[in-house]
């Protein structure tokens, strides 16, 4: 246990951050059938906003501001790049999403000048704590708890509120909901607002742990969160969360596999397995798609004749 614990801890923490990003992917997909490739970059932009704002404002003002600004950016992206394409073929919206992703990355590159930016310290979060002999930042422990709380709130919101009901109905049948008088545009905007909010929270947690923000910071976490969403069954929120934790934990266990095996005396020399941590994530994606194309919790699509 002592050998595996530090890896499990990082795995759970990373998993929680992937989960928050993955929910953004999965919700937008559930409603618009769109894979929002710009989502990972919204996450990165939230990190940069934090860096620049905290240079001049105290931290307790900055955090709500970051959340608000990120939500606004998510809303504007939807209105500017996706909503004009509502009746266009789905492929066009996806290309538009890729365009937004590169736009954000290059804007960030221009503003930061390609230099890595140090993320500010959030008191309490970034202090070191020690549990069962493993030392880590407090944010590592906060992340999974906060993730679970946010997910419970979100699921409650979708099940029990009027807007949640509207979201479910739009996800089930787009045109019929419109006929029933649901304001599709505001439902979609609301979805993007929630997605961006969670991305902003994820960025607070993620960058408190890994304190460097670069313009491509969003790419890898975004991609892995996407894999997590597909793994869990895209469109399903619990699926995304479980997928994210699975990927986070597996990834970190593989990084530590050599060390664990040596310590337990199974092997004498390192096998260089560490190198395959990323390869594993994407191999998993392929296996899932081959074996169960809808993911763990994915709904089976019945084609109507």
């Amino acid at each position, binding site marked *: 246990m002592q050998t595996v614990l530090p890896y499990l801890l990082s795995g759970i923490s990373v998993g929680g951050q992937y989960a928050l990003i993955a929910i953004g992917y999965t919700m937008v997909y559930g409603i618009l059938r769109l894979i929002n490739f710009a989502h990972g970059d919204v996450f990165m932009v939230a990190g940069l906003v934090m860096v620049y704002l905290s240079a001049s404002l105290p931290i307790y003002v900055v955090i709500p501001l970051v959340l608000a600004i990120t939500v606004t950016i998510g809303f504007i992206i939807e209105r500017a790049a996706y909503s004009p394409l509502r009746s266009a073929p789905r492929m066009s919206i996806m290309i538009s999403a890729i365009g937004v992703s590169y736009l954000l990355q290059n804007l960030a590159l221009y503003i930061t000048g390609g230099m890595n930016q140090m993320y500010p310290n959030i008191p309490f979060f970034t202090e070191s704590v020690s549990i069962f002999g493993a030392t*880590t930042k407090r944010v590592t422990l906060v992340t999974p708890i906060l993730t679970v709380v946010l997910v419970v709130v979100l699921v409650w919101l979708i099940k029990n509120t009027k807007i949640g009901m509207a979201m479910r109905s739009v996800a089930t049948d787009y045109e019929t909901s419109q006929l029933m008088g649901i304001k599709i545009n505001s439902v979609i905007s609301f979805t993007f607002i929630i997605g961006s909010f969670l991305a902003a929270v994820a960025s607070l947690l993620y960058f408190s*742990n890994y304190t460097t923000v670069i313009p491509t910071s969003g790419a890898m*976490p975004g991609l892995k969160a996407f894999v997590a969403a597909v793994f869990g069954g895209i469109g399903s929120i619990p699926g995304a969360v479980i997928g994210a934790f699975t990927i986070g934990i597996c990834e970190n266990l593989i990084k*530590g596999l050599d060390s664990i095996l040596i310590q337990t005396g199974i092997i004498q020399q*390192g096998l260089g397995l*560490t190198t395959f941590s990323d390869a594993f994530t994407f191999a998993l994606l392929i296996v899932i798609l081959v074996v169960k194309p809808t993911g763990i919790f994915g709904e089976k699509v019945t084609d109507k004749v």
Partner: protein
Amino acid sequence: MKKVLALLLSSTLMLALLAGCGGGQTPPPATTDPNAKVVHIGVFEPSTGDSGAGGKQETLGIQYANSLTPTVDIGGESYKVELVYADNGSSTDKAPTAAQQLVSKGVSVVLGSYGSGVSMAGSDIFKNAGIAAIGISCTNPQVTQGNTHYFRICFLDPFQGTVQAKFATEKFQAKKAYCLAELGNDYDVGLVNYFTDAFQKLGGTVTSETFPSGTSDFTSYITNAKNAGADVIFAPCSISYATQIIDQAAAQGLAKPIMAGDTWDSNKVVEAAKGKAVQIYVSTFYQEGGNPEFDSGFKTFLNSNSTNLNNNGGNDMISAVSAMGYDAYYVALEAIKAAGSTDSKAINDAIWKVSYPGVTGQIAFDTVNGDAVRKTAYIKTVNTETGVWDFEKEQSVD
């Protein structure tokens, strides 16, 4: 109405983008006087990507030298030296394009690059065009091996790896080392190999691991280092990763010294380590204070212009690569003077014989590969209380 609004929003986005382009880092304006004689020097450096920060600092050294000595005498005539910039994006697939840009702009000689991988990727383009290149801080042996057009003014990785291994055993009596490199990065992997060789010869054992590009979670690697019982960590990776490693090592209470090569000699590293419980040792080309005249002049140059200051990472700390860039520019001028022409072939032949007393030491080239003959490296350590580099010692190998 909706369409109009959408159109308005998207055009605002576009405008914001275009407005962004306006205030960019424009290179100095080209000479307008058609009669002025000009010699072009190519600056082959990354200003974006993982090594963007280092590339900019190196470029600053070149720019400073250019601002002090903007002309060169060729055969009794004064030529204006014009710098031509190309961003190789820290990536081996963009480097050939950047090199091609320099070639098509007709540069006489090339300076750069920061990073060995990109230098090698651009090498053939310069070779085919018959243009000589002077590497500034690319330390991988393969850059100059087997060719006559690539030179370098810095020491090499086998030397640097040996220096670090020797330092680790002498200073920390290290028996076990943990090495971490980015997968597929020629510089990291090469340096780790040389370190491993030298360290094993001194009787130590090494555990080596690599991480994929784009990694930001190093916690598991640090746990691996702890589990391996390492006395020192050797992690000569790009600065983007360096800052993460430092921060996470501190958070996990890794009390072992972290050592790295010349890439870590950056104020970003100091910034990340300030106020944290970490020990960092790097080997490098120049230590601030080595040449007070250069130091004060360069600081004035940095502070004279907010773009310069920004490119240096927001403060006026002197990075060794800036001093190297400064020296490289003068080496190039010496070669141009000796060649007595702006012809790139003549300059290439002249570089072999250049001997120049630079701020980083005497620079002369060996006759085999065109590598600088250097015997010592400076070891620096971060003072985590004050947030500056402290000089540790001059380490030489026999």
